[in-house]
């Protein structure tokens, strides 16, 4: 999941707690194994190595592709699961290596969901193109885990996969889950904002660890698939609260992609959000 995963369980019975923790871990592993782009043997690898041949996918993958296609359309192409190839040019490791414009331009023909032929259940990717569920997978896994837990127990549970989290319901005596949103200055290891959550989910997108510096400017790891360059004027961190983690995650990602208009976008959506920018 690309970060520490935790599950907080409020029960008095240790056996029940273990059962819940095991179920959440199983859920995380299943989704990681199935959709990680780093695995050589999963459905994503098969699609990415199909070399222009159609690939039939299972219904869960198809649902995710349908979802990605819809968000692509709704965001006027800003959200694009084929933009991962741009990472061949960009390394967001906190360093200051910038790619040459030519390097980026050479990759742009391989980016664009509109070049993909998707007719459920068959997907055909032009040779050299890749898809990547990195922008959805973690949040989707959180929601799946919460669903699983809700089916098996009435316990109050918080599932946190690398900063994307959701809760089943409020804690004992209707107390809220108190969640800290990490401040953008990692030197100060303190929560910048405390959020009391009694239901729903929080998703955070930020560049605390993933960025590249150019002439003293910090460029976000959020790439605009239309230019191949990092979105300029993006906030350092965006957190959104929504009924589900996937929903929250889409809103944080789309807000990041709006750059300077991130706050205006979230305001107009009327969702609860926390935006941190460098001062």
């Amino acid at each position, binding site marked *: 999941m690309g970060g520490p995963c935790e599950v907080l369980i409020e029960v008095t019975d240790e056996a029940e707690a273990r059962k819940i923790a095991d179920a959440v871990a199983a859920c995380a592993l299943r989704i990681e194994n199935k959709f990680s782009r780093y695995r050589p043997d999963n459905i994503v690898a098969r699609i990415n190595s199909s070399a222009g041949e159609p690939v039939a996918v299972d219904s869960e993958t198809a649902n995710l592709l349908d979802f990605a296609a819809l968000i692509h359309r709704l965001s006027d192409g800003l959200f694009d699961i084929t933009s991962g190839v741009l990472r061949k040019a960009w390394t967001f490791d906190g360093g200051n290596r910038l790619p040459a414009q030519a390097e980026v331009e050479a990759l742009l023909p391989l980016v664009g969901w509109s070049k993909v032929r998707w007719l459920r259940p068959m997907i055909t990717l032009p040779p050299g193109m890749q898809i990547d569920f990195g922008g959805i997978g973690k949040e989707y896994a959180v929601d799946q885990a919460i669903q699983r837990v809700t089916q098996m127990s009435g316990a109050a549970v918080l599932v946190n996969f690398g900063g994307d989290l959701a809760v089943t319901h409020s804690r004992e005596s*209707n107390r809220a889950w108190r969640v800290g949103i990490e401040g953008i200055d990692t030197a100060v290891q303190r929560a910048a904002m405390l959020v009391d959550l009694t239901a729903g989910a929080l998703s955070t997108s930020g560049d605390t660890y993933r960025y590249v510096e150019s002439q003293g400017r910090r460029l976000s790891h959020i790439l605009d698939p239309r230019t191949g360059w990092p979105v300029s004027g993006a906030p350092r961190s965006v957190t959104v*609260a929504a009924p589900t983690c996937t929903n929250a995650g889409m809103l944080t990602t789309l807000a990041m992609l709006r750059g300077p208009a991130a706050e205006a976008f979230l305001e107009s959506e009327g969702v609860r959000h926390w935006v941190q920018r460098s001062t």
Partner: protein
Amino acid sequence: MVGAASAAAAAGVTEMADKDTKIGAAIAAATCSLLGTATPGVSIAADTQAPWDVESAFLYYGESDGRVKDMSVSAQATRDYGDERKLGIDLSLDSLTGASPNGAMATNGAQTFTSPSGRATYSTPAGVVPLDDTFHDTRFALNGNWSQPLARLYTLNAGLGFSSEFDYQHLGANFGMTRDFNQRNTTLSAALAYAQDTVKPVGGLHAPLSQMTDAVDYGEDGGGGGGGGSDSKNVLDVLLGVSQVLGRQTVLRVNLSYSDSSGYLTDPYKILSVVDPVTGDLIGRTPAPGASGPTGVYLYESRPDSRRKEGLYAEMRHDFSGKVLQVGYRYSTDDWQVDSHTFESRLRLPFGSSSYLEPHVRYYQQTAASFYRYSVAGGSAPLPEFASADARLSDMNAITAGLKYGHVNAGGNEWNARLEFYRQTAKAPSEFLIGNQIGNTQMPDFDAVILQFGYHFKL
């Protein structure tokens, strides 16, 4: 050129904003379809931009037979400044009406009394415990409290309080400290509170055990009946407590308390009947010609000017996988020789995903104060130094039983309703009964109903 560009950009933003509204709903719908869930409700996330936590309540307390009624609205607001620094503000407004026993005993004939103002009279039929129905008041109270960590494991709290009634003012300050031990499984606390109260009775102060006199109309701006003025009392409270976690489901709390009151501790409106030392019947009195006034001999009560109380309280809470049982016992003793025992229990029963029921029972029992009297013997016998016929100082017990229902709504706020019944039974110790009073006493027992609606929300 620049102007045109920004105008275009502004137009673009507006367009985008209009369209974005559609995006949010579409994303939510797509998410539901992806996850195979029903359309979710509003996200329930509160943040520190809503830092106030408010418990508001409306309470009705009504005693049987047209006695005291209290309607009260209150709000307890807590603001969290993070790092366990909290400001608390409590506000309450009470409106009291109805009648309360004046201390005189029921007799075979009707009785007339001078009202507290000293200007009028009221009467009680034969065989009925006399009630003073001029009782009404509005009470306003405001308390502020601040708590914060002082050092690792230490928490400090300090507060100021104030309340005001027509005839009573209260000013108080408190200071306390807690310290955690043993990986925060043990908490020791110490608290100190000091209050200075001022009593300014309607109709003024009466000399201890002075006789109730005829009503006199002093005119519009006249003084009180039995002399004017006010008096004060000071109360010092000390509390030492320990709270101990006993395993995962159980918490034990034990408190020791000490309270020292000094000053005017008498109830200025309470009287005693003066009776024949042999028959125990009320000694009659005739008002002055043309005047109206008491038809018997009544004395204003007198209490010692100091009271020292010690108390022990123990409470255990146990969580039976979601059902929380709370059992408490209090023992209190004082130098007025009022010893009391209180047993109290609550059981919280959650049901559904967002509701609970909480039955509550409480039993209270006390012994009479050393100076409690059902009546005072007249004639040649010397008067005691202190005497009060207040039923709250006699042998007394009270039982409370009730049920609370609470529900957390979609916004994470809780509303609750509580209904309780209270029955108080008092008994005059037999050694204080004289002649005909034996086997013929009537104590001002009563029932009361308590109804409360509460709403707990964030602001």
